[in-house]
Every structure is written in C-alpha cells, then in structure tokens.
C-alpha cells in the first residue's frame, strides 16, 4: 500500500481559534500502481485538503497518514529527523494554477528544477526535461522558450512535466483541465491516461467534470463536508439513489442513455462508458 489514510481529520483554525473541520475521519488506501482515481465533491468539500495530505504538505490533526512507509501524524511531525522530501519525490502533486510554480527563464530549466532539488545531476535533469516535455505533448522547440509566453494549456503541460520529471510513483493533479477548451481538455486527459498506462503510475485527478469521471476513472472518491462518502467504481456511483443529494451532475453519456431508455424505450445492453461504446450500442439496438 503506497498511501494509507487512517481515520484522518484536519482542522483549520481561524484567528479566534475557532476550528473548521476540513477533513473528518477519512480512511483510505491508494496503491502504488494501476490506479486511475478521480476525486470529486463540491467546492469546499475537502478535496484539495485531502490531496495535500497525500504528499505531506499538510499534517493531519487527527489520525495518521502512511506514505510509502513513512508515518505522518501530529506526533511524528514534532521530531526533527522526519525528512519529507523523499515523500514529495514519490508523490507528485500538481496544483491547479501553473502560475504557482513556473518561475525559471526557460521551460527546460523549470522542468529540471524539481529533479535537481532531489539531487539529480544537471545533465540528467535536462535529459528528463526533454523526455517529459514530449510525454505531455510538446516538442523540443519549447525547451528554450520562456514559460510565461505560453498559452494557458501549454503552461499547464509544462507544470505537469515539471512534476513528472521528479519521476514520482504517484501523480496527483488538482483540477488539471479547468478553463481549457474541449479539445485541450481531451488531449490532456489522454496524456494522463498514457502516463497511467505506459509509465504504470497511479494517477489521482481532482475534477468537477463528471464526464471525465465516467469515461476515465477506475475508481472514484466522493468528498462531502470533509467526509469521504463514496469510494468505488463510477458506474455504481451514478446508479446510487442518493447521488442527487451529493450535488453531483450526471455524466452526459449516462444522461443521454437514460433519456433514451426511459422516454424513447430503446434498451441498451451492457456498459456505455465512452462515446464510441454508446454509439455502437445504439446502432445495435436499432437493428
């Protein structure tokens, strides 16, 4: 087990010492390989707080998190010998806005920054920069460009390459596709899926887009008011009766299928998780 949450609670304190519970009693396991997880929930439900526990940016105020064998809790954080950097290398976290991390003069240097912090040699770091840039779908001509003169989508890709270059086992992405146009979004999702498949890494994506959840995720985590209320596969999630009360949208594909079945009495057999599947099944049903 790569990441293990044991009854984790996290309380923010405001200025008057009033507590605000961002996470409550979360127990959860994430494997080192083979997972493609989406983490969903309303704004303020604790998604980002949960993600920031995965690479020990935050320390639980209750319970503990084990990350690659290292125990993170209130007690262990007090000891000075606790080195968090090895964890941050193993669990790469990409923030929502690439502007939070881009700072170097060239894309190459910026991507190489992370690995160098973990003791990778300059030459090796640059080697990785080039490789990861290609993986996120940008060609070598970008290496010498300034990260600030790129489009929003390109900045996102560079920021993801910057984390990938650290060669983490697990990649966590906070709303990586928000604000992108449909083509940009789909292309980026394919990149994540490739990283998951070809590099055999566990990928965790925080998102509001239920289509992403339905089409890509093997596993869904639903947060609601600091509680983990669902941990399972997407098909079952959307067939639950109480899914409405969690304020989650229904994915477009499922909405359409349900409309066809209920109002147009076309019955489709089996799963329709992708557009292609749906089309094929409709064609089949009409024959």
């Amino acid at each position, binding site marked *: 087990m790569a990441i293990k949450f044991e009854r984790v609670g996290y309380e923010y304190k405001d200025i008057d010492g009033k507590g605000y519970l961002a996470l409550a009693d979360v127990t959860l396991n994430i494997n080192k390989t083979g997972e493609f997880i989406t983490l969903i929930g309303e704004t303020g439900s604790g998604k980002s707080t949960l993600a920031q526990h995965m690479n020990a940016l935050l320390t639980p105020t209750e319970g503990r998190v084990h990350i690659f064998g290292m125990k993170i809790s209130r007690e262990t954080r007090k000891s000075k010998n606790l080195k968090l950097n090895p964890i941050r290398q193993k669990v790469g976290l990409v923030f929502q806005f690439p502007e939070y991390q881009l700072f170097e003069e060239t894309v190459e240097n910026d991507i190489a920054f992370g690995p160098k912090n973990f003791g990778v040699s300059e030459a090796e770091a640059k080697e990785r920069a080039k490789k990861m840039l290609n993986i996120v779908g940008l060609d070598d001509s970008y290496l010498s460009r300034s990260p600030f003169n790129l489009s929003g989508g390109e900045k996102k890709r560079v920021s993801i390459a910057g984390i990938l270059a650290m060669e983490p086992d697990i990649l966590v992405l906070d709303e990586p596709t928000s*604000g992108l146009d449909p083509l940009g979004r789909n292309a980026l999702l394919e990149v994540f899926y490739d990283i998951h498949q070809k590099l055999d890494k566990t990928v965790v994506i925080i998102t*509001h887009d239920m289509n992403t959840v339905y089409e890509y995720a093997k596993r869904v985590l639903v947060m609601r008011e600091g509680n983990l209320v669902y941990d399972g596969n997407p098909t079952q999630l959307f067939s639950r009766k109480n899914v409405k009360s969690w304020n989650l949208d229904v994915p477009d594909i499922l909405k359409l299928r349900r409309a066809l079945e209920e109002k*147009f009495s076309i019955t489709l057999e089996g799963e329709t998780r992708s557009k292609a599947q749906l089309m094929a099944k409709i064609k089949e049903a009409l024959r």
Partner: protein
Amino acid sequence: MSLIEIENVSFTYHGNKKALDDVSLSIEKGEWVSILGHNGSGKSTLSKLIVGLLKPQQGVIRVGGITLSADTVRDIRKKVGIVFQNPDNQFVGVTVRDDIAFGLENLQIEREEMIERIEHYAKKVDMYSYLNKEPHNLSGGQKQRVAIAGILAMKTDVIIFDEATAMLDPEGRERVMEYMRALNREGTTIITITHDMKEAVLSDRIVVLKDGRVLKSDKSENILKDKATLEKSNLELLLPLEIMHYLNENGIENPSLKEFLWQLSLNG
C-alpha cells in the same frame, strides 16, 4: 440600426500575430449572442474592444449609435457592462455592499438611490444576506453573482459575460446561467463569450471565431448542428447531436429519434 455594430475591426497585441482580423458583426437590442471559439481565438479581445479597454487598430465600433472613441468611451461604458472570468480579480470593494456600490459611486449616483439599487440587485442575485461579507468568505460563484449585481445596478443595456463561468464549479455555473436566462427574458442584451456548448445552446445566435476571424455567424440551431464548422474551430458537438451525426453517417433513418435527440440537446 443595431445596438452594437462592429465593422472591419482588427487588433494586434504588441509583437504578436493578429488577435482579430477584419471582424464585422452586429448585435440587436434584446438579443442573446454567443461568441464561441477555442482558447486564443480572439474572443476575449473582442469583448475588451467593445467596452473600450482596447482600441481597435482598424475599423469602427458603434454602441447605440455612438462611435467608440476616447471621448465617447465613458458614455459607452454606461451602456455596456462586463463580467470577467476570474471572480477574484474583479472584486473591488472590501465588502459585497461596497463592491456593488463601486460602479454607482463612479457614476455619481445619489446615496439614497445607491442604497436602494444595492439592496434591490443584491436580492436579485440572492446575495442580500451576504451584503456585509468580505470576499475571502465567498465562493467563486458567489463572487461572480456579486459582479453581476454590480453591473445590473449600473443599469446597462448590454452585459458581456467574458468566460464568466469558466472558473466556477458546476453548481456556480448553473446559477450564473440561470441569471443570464432571467436577464435576457427581461430584455437585457446579452453577449456570452465561451467555449462551453451548454452555455452557447441558450443563446439566439452563435458567432464562431477561429484565429481572429469570424468563421460563421448564424442562428444557434444551425450552428449547433454544424459539425464541420465546430470541428474546424476545435469545438465539440453536444453529445445528442454527435449521436445524430453518427446515425446519419451510418445511414440509419429514424426521424422520431432524431427529433428526440434534437429536443434533448436544446433542453440541456
């Protein structure tokens, strides 16, 4: 005469390729127009030109018969309001009340009138109970609603939503779209700048931009079905319409199913 007339407008940011290239379009009073395009198609440049935040290097923009220039820009801003993408970067006031007041103070509205309008429009976007709240206590969607109230209070004829829903969660987006619908029903002219087809489907007319040029401008129902045009500008068909295309391509004739899919896409 149309309410907004844009004639042969071009604009280039310093040292880059043309952001807008010979764009002409007109928008009628009470109409709801979507400007649709991929990231970097020039759609936000267009909205900044209409409110005079940028100056066209070529061409003419007229709003309500007034030609936009340095002398008239203030009169035009009294007619056209704009809600921007980032909810955090347009909240000027220290509280919700102050933020709605900001535009009114600039227009030198009397205090009594100001108070009345603030309360009225805060109620309209369901933010009345938040009037004394500070922005860091509000969600992105709530901040956008305050921005809308701020524009409404200025009683402009036109409101431009410049990707105003792009940074919101589904619930926040849904609510902002509801206000758009309500406002348009009451006669406000609306321009939405977006790449979200679910937002575009609400409008009367869609203008598709690609690389700074108008690719097509037509009634929404025609553009929605126009796969070739949408694909050319990196956009997606709504799912039911994509299915409809698939059926057509595969020679499956089923008029009632097609009608059903069509209705489905119009009603979200």
